[in-house]
């Protein structure tokens, strides 16, 4: 219990520390920034849930952004005729269809998931652009986008987090995904059908892609059907969130909370940079350095631990 409390304190210390640093450095950052940070974190966090499933199964996916845009475009188009129901149904059908199609391709052809994800990304981008028509984007009316705007977006992400927690920690499939990700051969020897597990893992990302699609189209009231692999950039922030979450996992094993903390930290850094008036290039450099320092310190500490364990083991043998 004491350990858990300490871990939670350590976890909270990271975003809290970043918040204090930026608050001291600039007047433009402070308590008034919190609602913006919370609101802006929601899309990367919910996309991160989907990516965490993929990454846990040792699969890499760059198509989550494209799939969300594709689903949101279907939702946006359906919303023109069927209102709220059309928006939700369109986003759900689009995201699930996209995920199932990707899973089927993976199961049938056994091509690395990263390669498939780039292939489907290109396809979904073009399909979304065709659906969006000559304007290149789909707009939804104000009364519809309110369902995914602040503070409703936080409620949606909490629901998604609960679902993710149940899938990841309380269901057999969650354990199977982790096991397959850790050692596929061993799982096969134990009778776990690794291909089936990976198929389900990819399909499950469709659920979080649905939430991501809803939040993305509601955030600005429109969705841009970008082509030329531009949607790939939509997964960079979520990937950072998941990497940070996986690093923090040694403190507390609760991925939804960790991804949320990762999302808050990354968004806070971006907002802090803007408040400090940093240029775009400098923002990228400092963010890169931040990730290297945080992840590098993790690697160094685990190396130190290993060395310590080896030394202790040697001592034990000698004794």
């Amino acid at each position: 219990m004491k350990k858990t409390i300490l871990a939670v304190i350590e976890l909270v210390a990271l975003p809290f520390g970043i918040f204090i640093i930026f608050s001291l450095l600039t007047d433009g950052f402070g308590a008034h920034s919190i609602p913006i940070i919370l609101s802006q974190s929601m899309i990367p966090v919910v996309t991160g849930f989907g990516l965490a499933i993929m990454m846990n199964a040792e699969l890499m996916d760059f198509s989550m952004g494209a799939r969300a845009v594709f689903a949101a475009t279907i939702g946006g188009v359906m919303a023109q005729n069927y209102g709220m129901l059309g928006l939700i149904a369109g986003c759900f059908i689009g995201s699930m269809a996209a995920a199932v199609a990707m899973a089927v391709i993976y199961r049938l052809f056994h091509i690395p998931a990263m390669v498939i994800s780039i292939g489907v990304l290109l396809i979904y981008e073009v399909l979304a652009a065709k659906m969006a028509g000559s304007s290149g984007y789909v707009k939804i009316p104000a009364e519809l986008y309110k369902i995914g705007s602040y503070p409703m977006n936080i409620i949606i992400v909490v629901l998604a987090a609960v679902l993710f927690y149940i899938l990841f920690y309380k269901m057999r499939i969650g354990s199977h995904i982790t096991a397959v990700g850790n050692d596929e051969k061993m799982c096969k020897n134990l009778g776990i059908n690794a291909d089936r597990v990976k198929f389900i893992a990819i399909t499950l990302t469709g659920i979080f892609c649905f939430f991501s699609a809803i939040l993305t189209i509601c955030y600005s009231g429109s969705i841009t059907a970008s082509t030329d692999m531009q949607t790939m950039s939509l997964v960079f922030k979520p990937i950072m969130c998941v990497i940070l979450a996986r690093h923090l996992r040694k403190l507390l094993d609760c991925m939804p909370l960790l991804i949320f903390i990762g999302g808050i930290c990354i968004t806070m850094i971006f907002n802090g940079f803007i408040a400090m008036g940093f240029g775009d290039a400098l923002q990228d450099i400092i963010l890169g350095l931040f990730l290297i320092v945080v992840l590098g310190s993790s690697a160094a500490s685990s190396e130190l631990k290993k060395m310590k364990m080896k030394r202790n083991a040697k001592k034990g043998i000698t004794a």
Partner: protein
Amino acid sequence: MRRKLMAGLLVLTMMVGGLTGCGASGKTSAGSDAATGSTAVSSAAVDQSVQGSSAAKETTAKKTANKKPYKIAVGLPDSGSTMFSLMSNNVKTFVESTGGKVVFQGGVGASADATIQFVEDQIAAGANGIIISPPADSVLPTVSSMCEEAGVYWGITFRTIKDQAIKSQIESSKYYVGNCFEDEANTGYQVMTNLNKLVVKKIAIISQAKGNTTTDLREEGINKACEQYGMKVVTEARSLTQASDATSATESFLSAYPDLDCVFIVGTTGTGMHEAVAKAIKDAGRQDKVKMATIDFPDSMVELFKSGMLDTCSGLPSWGYDPFMITTVLANKCMGTPISETPVTLTCSMFDISDTATAEAWTKKFGEATTLYYDKDTMLKTFCKSNNKDLNADFMEKSIKEFTENAIK
């Protein structure tokens, strides 16, 4: 056994692929034949459209139809937004009316690699002329040497050449026909002057990544205005591709700078960005204090002016007019009737829209993808050297000026 069969099948596929590859030149000539065929159709179409109207028109079309067939590749998308479709319709109308063929490809200007790849591909596909919008000057010497080697004419749209050494190098090539570009720096300066009149002092910009020739020049103009009028660019966001990113960036600007006066969209490739910025300003309840400005007219300009969210914008009368003009220069060269022996440099000036009525007039004319800058007959009579002996760089500049002045009349 199955593996052996599979291996055999793969070897067979590779051999067939190899044979097809070896037959490339044959295929190119076949492509040429096909192009000739399409030319015949196009010429017939031109003849048909012109027939019966007047004898002069008939002569014009026949004169043009006698020209050798050619193929032009344009490194811009032909669909995805109204401005792309409008541009491609006009370029297609001119090229096909003069017995040529045109292909479009998007994403070419995104990187140096994409530009070189496009030029390579189009040379291999048998293009006689290529138009690019290069991401940076550094790519131009490579493009020039590739085109020179292949004997393919080429021109630049939307971009000027900042590096003087590169400029003189490529201008010495007989395959380079010239460039058409917008006065970007002056446009940036002009929008800032308009904003200064609206008592704007602190500005946040949304722009492309550093190194993009267009937005870099626009920002040069912005910086010049900042020095002159005591204005300041306090923050920036770059390379936004999704509307939600624009909303998010604007929220951050507004949160970090309570005294922010304006969000200026200097350049973006994403659609729906302007509405996304407007939504963020409105949601923050700052629409009375924070102004919005942009370069290039968004599709939703009228709506934004009506709602009072957009204060000033500047752009070409039509985005596609610039590639259209350089296409006419390149097409004449490909047809063997160059408008000039030396490369031409054409400058398109932009103009401001700051009220709903002008925005409506503009949208009525250029908000439709089917609008032609000139009717087909005028295109043939005016922009074909074989029909218009006066056609030269000065004539082109004069035409651009007239078009800009009469754009929304």
